[in-house]
């Protein structure tokens, strides 16, 4: 009896310590990555990095303005395409969620969300690039496919958090269902939905694989959306592979900008959530 009790207490203590230790360890990789990237990249970050085009191999200076602009364009396009689309899917799944169609949609959305991004890249390559060549459009299409399920599922979850009495009160007022959703439920879920959108943006901004063979890359600014287009992750990838010290430096700087972007997005989301504390209980 007593032995069993002492044994149980001991096992309890050990597992608790283990869990605590692992929890702390889980935070370590991010800090190691950040410190590492900060250390390597900070030296190469300068005003030029944001405003200049890349110099030739082995030359000093230059920047990644083309990649930053290209990323902004493709991520922006993907956002414009996937946000209304994904939001509509999210609304459908949350507000008409018990129907067969909604259940199928939820399942396929989950499948799409877990599809490796390289597969999405190949898919867009076969569907678009083969016919029209590498372009910002193709890159944006790949990013859209990746963003879409994230936007749909997070907005669904956020809308479901809005209590049903909000919908009932709206219907009881004699408002048509779509007005209840658009004017009452969606605003009530606003901060949560926006969080989901920002996190989806942060996620695709760092995607490399789907852009490799859709947007390809470009050493200059693209003149149109139909041309190969540089992006920060792909440029980081290419430069990191280079034998030239200067280019590796630039790759670190690019990596740092990506990390900073993700941190800024997450922080601003937190602030947004704090300032708009959800809905009334």
């Amino acid at each position, binding site marked *: 009896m007593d032995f069993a009790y002492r044994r149980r207490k001991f096992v309890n203590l050990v597992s608790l310590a283990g869990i605590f230790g692992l929890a702390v360890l889980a935070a370590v990789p991010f800090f190691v990555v950040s410190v590492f990237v900060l250390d390597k990249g900070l030296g190469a970050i300068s005003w030029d990095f944001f405003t200049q085009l890349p110099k030739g191999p082995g030359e000093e200076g230059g920047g990644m303005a083309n990649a930053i602009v290209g990323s902004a364009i493709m991520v922006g396009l993907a956002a414009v395409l996937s946000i209304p689309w994904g939001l509509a899917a999210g609304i459908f799944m949350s507000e008409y969620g018990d129907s067969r169609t909604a259940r199928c949609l939820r399942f396929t959305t989950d499948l799409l969300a877990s599809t490796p991004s390289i597969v999405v890249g190949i898919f867009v390559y076969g569907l678009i690039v083969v016919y029209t060549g590498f372009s910002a459009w193709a890159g944006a299409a790949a990013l859209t496919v990746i963003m879409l399920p994230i936007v749909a599922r997070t907005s669904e979850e956020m809308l479901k958090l809005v209590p049903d009495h909000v919908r009932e009160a709206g219907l009881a007022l*004699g408002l048509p269902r779509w007005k209840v959703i658009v004017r009452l439920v969606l605003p*009530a879920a606003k901060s949560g939905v926006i969080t989901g959108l920002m996190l989806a943006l942060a996620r695709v901004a760092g995607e490399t694989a789907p852009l490799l063979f859709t947007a390809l890359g470009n050493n200059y600014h693209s003149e149109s959306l139909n041309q190969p287009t540089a992006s920060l992750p792909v440029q980081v990838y290419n430069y990191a592979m280079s034998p030239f010290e200067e280019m590796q430096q630039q790759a670190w700087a690019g990596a740092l900008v990506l990390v900073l972007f993700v941190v800024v997005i997450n922080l601003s989301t937190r602030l947004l959530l704090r300032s708009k504390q959800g809905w009334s209980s």
Partner: protein
Amino acid sequence: MSASNSILHVNQLDAWFGNFHALKNISVDVKDHDVMALIGPSGCGKSTFIRCLNRLHEEIEGAKVSGDVFLEGQNIYGPGKDPVVIRRRIGMVFQKPNPFPGLSIYDNVAIGLKLGGMRDRHQVEEHVHQALCGAALWDEVKDKLKRPGASLSGGQQQRLCIARALAVQPPVLLMDEPTSALDPISTGRIEELIQQLKATITVIIVTHNMQQAARIANRTAYFLLGEMVEVGQTQQIFEAPVDTRTRDYVTGQFG
């Protein structure tokens, strides 16, 4: 079909949740300016009944209704009747105060008007003012109309919900245990308010509190297991019930 001074006439109403028969053959008349209380043990179908009166019941997955409900002489379950239009003629207040999250006090009341198509800002302001006065809330909120509805106390929130329902000027107001989440003082204010409301509209109120029914309702209906066992003058129901089941319930509750 309906008697000349009855605003609401229910004829052989049945309701189901899937296979569960929640309301059985209910027929009743509600007269203009009545305050009718619905009493009965919990789970007997009171909420289901009033949710059939504004066609909210059918919004639940698997829910069904049969029978007729005449509102001002028109069958709301008649062919081609739009529930949205009907719900504008019959307001509803819920058990838990539920102002719209994120909307100001003013917008909570105005939204039914605005989304219902009222464009003129002065007209909206006028209606909001009237509704807040009608809900005995105006004096308490007139200086903070822009504040969130959720910033009010529970009792004030419930009066805000009453104002929200009154704003579109329905002739009938349904209330589902509107004071059960409130303290005695807030409850008293809402009971007072109902006394004032009956001058202009008809009120059907679910209550689990028989004293409340006795205080505010001129007519009372007793529900049990999905049936409306007895309906009559409140005094008669409490003092001389005809049905033994009503008597058992009433004496048990007051006893």
